[in-house]
């Protein structure tokens, strides 16, 4: 499995001179399996450049896995070139709801007045699926599990050839508490992250910011480091950077996280970051 990060900014796209190094596009991660299956994690604004740069190597079948439907994870969908190609087979997966299908919920954004075109008129005619339990996509084994955030949200675990990547860009493992204060089986997201080779995880707030935003569904640096250690992950990549945090502040956050970890473990996600499992 090979991966590339096309967007790791949280909440709001944040272009500008203060975010050049880590990037301003919102959540989007490209995964290629050994059989060339393409899985895209979230459809934030990073999805647009992914579609442009990969135009010549785009497979005819694409799977987009949405963690949830907040705009910063969805608004790239209408600007992803393959969506407008009738020869593309597009599968979109997302959190289940007891009241509305995934397609119905996405259509609220993908229709006037918020978007100029109706979802039903999209040439690729996306197929929508509930992300629930475990299933196969090409060579990948995918698991989805509800996690703690505001509104229906899932975390994903993608496994191939004995390696696992866990993805939880928006996640508050324990509301207002250190994740180490409960047994792991009672910890939101632990099932997804446990023993993963790479964990891409929410790292939105400083401790001071988190104090004011308990219950908003995001993690402090302290909590993401603790969560990564409780989950015994090999590599922790801090994701979903707060739009108010500049590159220099993210450098400080990384240094602090490494102090908490007790070594070089944590890394900051940045646009263009590539990894291989």
């Amino acid at each position, binding site marked *: 499995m090979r991966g590339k990060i096309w967007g790791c900014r949280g909440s709001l796209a944040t272009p500008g001179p203060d975010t050049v190094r880590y990037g301003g596009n919102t959540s989007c991660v490209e995964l290629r399996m050994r059989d060339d299956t393409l899985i895209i994690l979230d459809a934030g604004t990073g999805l647009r450049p992914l579609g442009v740069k990969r135009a010549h190597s785009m497979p005819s079948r694409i799977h987009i896995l949405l963690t949830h439907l907040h705009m910063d994870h969805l608004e790239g969908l209408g600007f992803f070139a393959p969506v407008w190609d009738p020869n593309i087979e597009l599968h979109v997966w997302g959190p289940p*709801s*007891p009241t509305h299908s995934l397609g119905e919920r996405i259509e609220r954004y993908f229709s006037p007045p918020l978007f100029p075109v109706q979802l039903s008129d999209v040439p690729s005619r996306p197929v929508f699926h*509930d992300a629930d339990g475990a299933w196969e996509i090409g060579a990948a084994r995918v698991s989805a599990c*509800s996690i*703690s955030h505001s509104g229906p949200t899932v975390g994903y675990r993608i496994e191939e050839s004995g390696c696992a990547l866990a993805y939880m860009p928006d996640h508050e493992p*324990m509301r207002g508490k250190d994740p180490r204060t409960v047994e*792991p*089986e009672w910890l939101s997201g632990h099932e997804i992250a*446990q023993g993963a080779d790479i964990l891409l995880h929410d790292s939105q707030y400083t401790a001071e910011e988190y104090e004011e935003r308990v219950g908003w569904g995001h993690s402090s640096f302290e909590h993401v480091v603790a969560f990564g250690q409780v989950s015994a992950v090999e590599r922790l990549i801090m994701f979903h950077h707060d739009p108010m945090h500049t590159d220099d502040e993210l450098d400080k956050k990384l240094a602090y996280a490494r102090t908490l970890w007790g070594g070089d473990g944590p890394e900051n996600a940045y646009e263009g970051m590539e990894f291989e499992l």
Partner: protein
Amino acid sequence: MVRAEHKSLALILTRDLASNLATPLFIVDPEGTLVFYNEPAEAVLGKRYAEAGELSADDWSGAMFDPQDETGRTMRPREMPLGIALSEHRPAHGRMSITGLDGLRRTIEVTAFPLFARSNEVAGAVAIFWEDRGDAPE
């Protein structure tokens, strides 16, 4: 690596809520296994949850608490509000007496309801209860 038995998010958040309430709460998983009760419930049930631990449905609904209706008849699991909530997937309310793990007999009022998770599966059930000390205002 052997994986721990993870709880569903519905149970995790219910336990989080229970831990922050002064009202006694008792939580069971879809199989009816007791997975948590909070500190106010400990005062009624007569033992700390950390000492009692997870209990099977047969244990908590049987001789352990010796549940009886208002006539003194032993209640079967499916007659108890929590048993109804779990087996019939609907809320239920009742008045009963139990013997706490401290050996004291107490009368309680119980309201129980099933927990439906987002994909509409039953994630467990919750019982909220109050001890009736007979000191309610007339």
